[in-house]
């Protein structure tokens, strides 16, 4: 994936959110975008998803512009399920051709076996996020865009979900862009951490993390969190 922007602003009166901005993401790489709230992480993710077309420059996914490239597997901050559809119908809403077997297999992969007939309100918060992940995988397991997927969840649920994400990453080897404000999310899941700062937005630090999320021990995670926090502090100075 290649992101090469020259300018992006929300209205003529405001300061541009992006100036000249370049980011290359290799296939199969898990990149965490870290930065303070409001810096433009989610906007960048929305631009990659094709939701923010008003920019100068180009974003290429597998060599194709975003409006031509296959839709990404997007995981929203909230589960954003359609409450009037059951779990199976939520999957079929974005990929209508799925057979019953495919639906059941996918639900089983995310730990929701046998819950195809359950409506979202009958699922816990963690289960709803799992269904949101299943929906993203059903559309495009090769490119996952994760917008703060662990907000408003307690730590036990987050740990379960992160284990699930690692399993999916290992099985599908997708290209992943993870937006988060929490260095620990990045340390547990990412291969690379891009720290964003300032306006116009710039890459303040680009860290390659050793190992993969699945291999890291709690001590490794703690050390990587320390590294990311140190880099963030240096950016602020």
């Amino acid at each position, binding site marked *: 994936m290649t992101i090469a922007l020259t300018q992006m602003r929300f209205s003529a009166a405001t300061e541009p959110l992006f100036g000249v901005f370049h980011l290359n993401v290799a296939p199969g790489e898990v990149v965490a975008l870290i930065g303070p709230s409001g810096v433009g992480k989610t906007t960048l993710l929305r631009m990659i998803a094709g*939701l923010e077309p008003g920019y100068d420059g180009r974003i290429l996914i597998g060599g194709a512009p975003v409006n031509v490239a296959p839709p990404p597997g997007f995981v929203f901050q909230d589960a954003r399920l*359609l409450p009037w559809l059951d779990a199976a119908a939520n999957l079929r809403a974005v990929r209508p051709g799925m057979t019953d077997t495919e639906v059941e297999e996918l639900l089983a992969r995310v730990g929701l076996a046998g819950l195809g007939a359950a409506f979202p309100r009958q699922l816990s918060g963690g289960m709803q996020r799992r269904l949101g992940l299943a929906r993203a995988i059903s559309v495009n397991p090769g490119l996952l865009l994760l917008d703060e997927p662990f907000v408003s969840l307690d730590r036990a649920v987050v740990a379960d979900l992160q284990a699930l994400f690692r399993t999916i990453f290992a099985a599908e080897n997708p290209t992943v862009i993870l937006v988060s404000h929490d260095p620990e999310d990045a340390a547990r899941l990412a291969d690379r951490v891009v720290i964003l700062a300032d306006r116009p937005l710039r890459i303040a630090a680009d860290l390659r993390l050793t190992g993969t999320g699945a291999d890291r021990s709690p001590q490794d995670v703690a050390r990587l969190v320390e590294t990311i926090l140190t880099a963030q502090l240096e950016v602020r100075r």
Partner: protein
Amino acid sequence: MTSLIWQRARSGRASRSSLRGAGLDQNASELTFANRGPFSARLEWFSLPLLLVLWQGAAMVAASRFFPSPAVVAAEVVDLTLHGHLVKDFAKTLLRTFLGFVVAMGLGGVLGFVLGRVRGLDRLFGPWVVVGLNMPAVVIAVICYIWLGLSEFALVLAVVINKTPLVITTIREGVRSLSPDYDELAAVFRMPMARRIRLIHVPQLMPFVMTAARTGLALIWKMVLVFEVLGSDGGVGFRVGIFFQYFDMAGILAYTVVFVAMVMLIEHGALRPLERRVARWRQDPP
């Protein structure tokens, strides 16, 4: 423990203190109210018989041919069904109501959706909707009758012109309240327009559609009857007009009773089941 108390609460066996102890205090009053449900439901069964008893009593006190008793009216219903035009009149009125309802809901639904989505068109045609909402129904009927003659088409057209602005207004409000989050979901997963409308827009609009249907049906019934009095060759309104000329209260009330029964049948046989089906996803699992 909590689930046990919930089960008891649902079956009406939990005390308020046990609910508080289980941290379910905020639901306590609601559950206590719900426990009164079966008795309230039984009360509903007494409602219509009570009305009949009061009617019978008032008729006996009045002792006038202008205030017939329920028994007299019931006999009149049987007589008009077997020897009069009751069945034919109701068939005509029902058909007119059905046609007016379907066309007004369809047309108003589409126009309301378009005006809710396209701001420019709403600015251009919004005042027309306001004019339509405030035009007296009788004036529209008279104009239609003068221009098109005393025909079925003129009557149904008058109903449609009267009702459509109300449907447009309701559906337009629904469209304006559509969640942008779900639009974003549809955009990110590149859902085609037909699927967006079917899976994202229509379910969000259903409460507004049901409101438009319920208020619309109530309004259309009344309009059809008034327009039938004004000019038609049959129907409930037409017949009630004739009864009025002869001061035939038994006939008027006979038609009224059958009319109310029909409306109740549609309410309980069609609208409420449809409403339950639409709201299925909000209900507790069985």
